[in-house]
């Protein structure tokens, strides 16, 4: 069971002057229940890749298969766009979140809405009657994610789900994604490598439409060359550990989160002096 991208290629506006390939020979797998984090510079093709995975664009070459079927099958892949809260339209959170499952003809709409809100840490009894337009940034973003989750798709694609959120909002979204993993296969595009590396099962790096790296976050953290080639800076925690190594610190394995980095640096410091 997986979302499988095979030798995917894509070009916008085939046959026009700007018809340069945006994606070339991309292969990638999101196994059921895992979190794959996609990084890459602006314009590297991340949003385009998500649109192809959701079946919203047709590949120019290669294929996207979701558990063996073509990606455009209704109900197999949910996508949360950048700034999704701009698309709220209903008077209540309940109506907004119910829209997707109703369209898909899901039987237990009420249950789908409650489960979806629960999954993003919002109490359905409190939030269902509220107007989506009066929510805080973090709440609004999570309601938008719930609207996609309510369709109960086995795969979820998210385009920069924490951009523009304050720290509490970012933390809430991250927690929601961790809570969903195991049940939903997640492909998430982000610039917040510091915050997403610790929750990733795998990291996929794009550079000018081509795959640059695909592997464990720990392995990616050991490859400054990949970050540089991708036009990205190393996450600050990872960078600190590489700089410490350059000064002779003994760091067997680079840590990804705050606690780990503090532990690694203080241990190295003790050994050193």
């Amino acid at each position, binding site marked *: 069971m997986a979302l499988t991208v095979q030798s995917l290629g894509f070009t*916008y506006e085939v046959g026009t002057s*700007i018809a340069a390939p945006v994606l070339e020979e991309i292969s990638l797998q999101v196994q059921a229940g895992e979190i794959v984090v996609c990084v*890459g*510079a*602006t*314009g590297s093709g991340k*949003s385009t890749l998500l649109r192809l995975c959701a079946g919203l664009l047709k590949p120019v070459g290669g294929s996207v298969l979701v558990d063996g079927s073509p990606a455009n099958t209704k109900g197999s892949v949910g996508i949360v766009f*950048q*700034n999704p809260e*701009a698309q709220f339209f209903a008077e209540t959170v309940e109506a907004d979140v119910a829209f997707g499952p109703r369209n898909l003809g899901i039987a237990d709409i009420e249950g789908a809405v409650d489960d979806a809100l629960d999954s993003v840490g919002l109490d359905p009894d409190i939030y269902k009657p509220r107007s989506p337009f009066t929510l*805080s*940034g*973090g709440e609004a973003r999570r309601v938008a994610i719930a609207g996609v989750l309510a369709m109960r798709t086995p795969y979820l694609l998210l385009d*920069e789900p924490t*951009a*523009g*959120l*304050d*720290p*509490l*909002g970012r933390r809430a979204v991250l927690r929601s994604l961790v809570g969903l993993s195991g049940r939903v296969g997640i492909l998430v595009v982000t*610039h917040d*490598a*510091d*915050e997403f590396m610790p929750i990733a099962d795998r990291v996929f790096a794009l550079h000018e439409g081509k795959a640059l790296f695909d592997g464990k976050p720990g392995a990616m953290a050991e490859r400054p060359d990949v970050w540089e080639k991708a*036009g*990205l*800076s190393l*996450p*600050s*925690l990872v*960078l*600190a550990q590489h*700089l*410490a190594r350059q*000064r*002779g*610190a003994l760091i067997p394995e680079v840590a990804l989160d*705050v*606690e780990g*980095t*503090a532990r690694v*640096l*203080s241990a190295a*410091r003790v050994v*050193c002096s």
Partner: protein
Amino acid sequence: MIDFQRVRYSYPGADSQAIAGVSLCLSPGEIVVLVGANGSGKSTLARMCNGLLIPDEGSVTVDGMDTSDGKVAFDIRARVGLVLQNPDNQIVGTVVEEDVAFGPENLGVPCAELRVRVDEALAAVGLSGLERREPHLLSEGQKQRLAIAGALAMQPRYMVFDESTAMLDPQGRRDVLAVMRKLRVAGHGILHVTHHLDDAADADRVIALASGAIAFDGTPEELFSDEGLLVSIGLELPPLASVATALRRSGLDVPVAVANAQSLVEALWP
């Protein structure tokens, strides 16, 4: 100087004040970073800097001109460039270069200089080569860069950036921060609204808003060393500063406000 004096503002029909008694100033040649939780009033404050919103009480003046005085509205708009949070609300041209030229053209900049300004602004944000691209064919990060170029081309004395780095990749963020530092050297005053507290590390001053009021106004070092205050207003230390705090707790001698990985490591391995 942009000068806020005891400013209050409520949106029509709202039951609480979005700005609840704010006094602050922004001088030419400084970068002031404005932080605060979602909904704390940052965008409202940003929109008051050039008269897009007018205070209900108190005053906002730009080099002595009051934003509530309709006669100077044009001069104020020319002097204060505002890059909105959502670039889609700002893009007007049918192709990239036309969009950038729109502002200065309205200011009456002559044709020859217009070309130079547009090229310089596009180069500054890394969009050279996309002059003839239609804005709706740009990626989100490229649109944000375009909005910044449009404001740069007007060469206003003050620039207000409302979360202009939110959609950018780390390199793009660094590019825009570098543009801000260049503007500072050239004597422009910059107000930078951001959720990235690490963007604040090399600001001259940081102002934190909470529920429409100023909860903090001081140096980045002072703010970073007050974790209690940060948490109470819904913010938190950037990851690297959290590591520094953890290391200090375990008895190591590291500074309070670490601006970057380099300075943290230099403190540990001098």
